């Protein structure tokens, strides 16, 4: 597999990062301690390089109608300046990727797929665009993405934004986006993230990424901002109950068992790829009244469940863990797992087979962690 490097690779090397392959990219796993980075995001702020994510522009008179067809959500209902979480499905209703789309003008959307799926999604969007008056442009290779996440994110951003635009930042709603002058440059700023904290994501051309990264670290130092790697990104998103494609979501699974039924707009008038299959799945109740569904598990002991470990009820396998680790914020093991719906009620006592020994877990509501607002 080709190992891609983001425009910030040199910055990560300078900061002493250890690297990991993620979706074909060499990404910083951690800079010092992933626990310290996790706590920094919860209590102050962390700086993430997310440049491995894809950026696909969809523009033209049919942009909204096209995304209504290509994605499971109703993108035409999204107001300009807002973002929407959605799924791109195959005709069988299988999840090809989960993604965020920003509507930046009536006829202009930015679609952000996951790193490992970016090429596939860009290709599928181009393919599905046949017959629509739209232009699909994959800008992934030219675009960097930097996230500032944590309670101090607003204060840090404001140091780089001219006073007359401060209200744009402070009053920006969650899942909204706007062009903002940051460090003297007009950039797309979104109040989104994958950590369960307040925070922003900044889209920046590759050539300007290192400069922005450096100035953010400098200006954020007083606010406790430190660079944060993918290890803590995973523990943060798990605490926040957010699915990770490849763990909780897969082409062999579907939205209903993943608890993402509300993301699928069967009510939208137009057809979309996967609509008939998803309507049929919903009819059967798979993932809701039968089959397996995604739940949160809390460990009652100290040992953590990990991906692919069997979930047991009275010794019989009734599910499988998709993600799990000790929660740094909560201090006990947390996991997500697909379990038979009969054992998916909150409060159900289950076991997880931890390398041959059954350890007690309990079904709990997601998310595990919710920030105080």
């Amino acid at each position, binding site marked *: 597999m080709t190992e891609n490097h983001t425009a910030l690779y040199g910055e990560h090397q300078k900061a002493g990062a250890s690297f990991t392959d993620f979706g074909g990219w060499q990404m910083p796993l*951690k800079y010092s*301690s*992933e*626990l310290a980075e996790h706590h920094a995001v919860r209590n102050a702020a962390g700086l993430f390089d997310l440049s491995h994510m894809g950026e696909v522009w969809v523009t033209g008179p049919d942009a909204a109608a096209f995304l209504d067809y290509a994605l499971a959500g109703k993108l035409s209902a999204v107001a300009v300046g807002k973002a929407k979480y959605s799924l791109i499905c195959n005709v069988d209703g299988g999840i090809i990727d989960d993604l965020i789309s920003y509507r930046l003008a009536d006829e202009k959307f930015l679609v952000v797929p996951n790193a490992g799926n970016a090429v596939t999604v860009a290709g599928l969007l181009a393919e599905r665009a046949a017959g629509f008056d739209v232009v699909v442009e994959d800008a992934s290779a030219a675009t960097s993405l930097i996230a500032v996440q944590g309670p101090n994110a607003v204060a840090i951003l404001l140091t780089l934004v001219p006073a007359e635009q401060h209200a744009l930042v402070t009053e920006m709603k969650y899942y909204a986006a706007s062009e903002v002058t940051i460090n003297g440059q007009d950039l797309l700023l979104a109040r989104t993230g994958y950590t369960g904290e307040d925070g922003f994501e900044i889209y920046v051309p590759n050539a300007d990424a290192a400069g922005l990264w450096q100035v953010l670290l400098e200006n954020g130092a007083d606010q406790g901002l430190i660079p944060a790697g993918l*290890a803590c990104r995973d523990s943060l998103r798990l605490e926040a109950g957010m699915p990770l494609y490849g763990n909780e979501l897969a082409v062999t699974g579907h939205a209903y068992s993943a608890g993402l039924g509300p993301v699928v707009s069967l009510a939208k008038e137009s057809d979309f790829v996967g609509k008939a299959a998803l309507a049929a799945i919903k009819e059967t109740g798979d993932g809701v009244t039968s089959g397996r569904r995604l739940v949160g598990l809390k460990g009652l002991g100290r*040992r*953590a469940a*990990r991906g692919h470990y069997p979930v047991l009820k009275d010794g019989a396998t009734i599910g499988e863990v998709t993600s799990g680790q000790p929660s740094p914020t909560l201090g006990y093991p947390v996991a997500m797992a697909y379990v038979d719906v009969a054992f998916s009620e909150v409060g159900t006592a289950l076991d997880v087979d931890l*390398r041959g020994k059954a350890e007690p877990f309990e079904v709990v509501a997601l998310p595990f962690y919710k920030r105080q607002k």
Partner: protein
Amino acid sequence: MSKVAAELKYSVEHEWIAQDGSGPTTIGVSAVAADALGDIVYVDLPEVGSTVTAGETCGEIESTKSVSDLFSPVTGTVTEVNTAAIDDPAVVNSDPYGAGWLFKVEVESFGPLLSAEEYAAANGGEL
């Protein structure tokens, strides 16, 4: 801190043992292993009085990211475990060759061990 302590011997499974001549031998995990594991949050150690066998698992070390078996580099009887490391496993990351030691064994026989030089060479580390 150097990743490989010169005065110790090592197993291929990344445990170190102190060769202090007399009495029980102290065992821990190397800084190489502690770094690779990430922040350690849980250690499961053999019980005092139990018998451990060289090359066999006798516990586990869990980090935020992963979990790894703990192998005994020696055969013998466990005389003491580091309860401070059980209470605060972060000490295994911060001081793996000192306060982060794991258990002590009255040794009957040693498994195959590497010198510090050999271990460092095998792990791209420096003394």
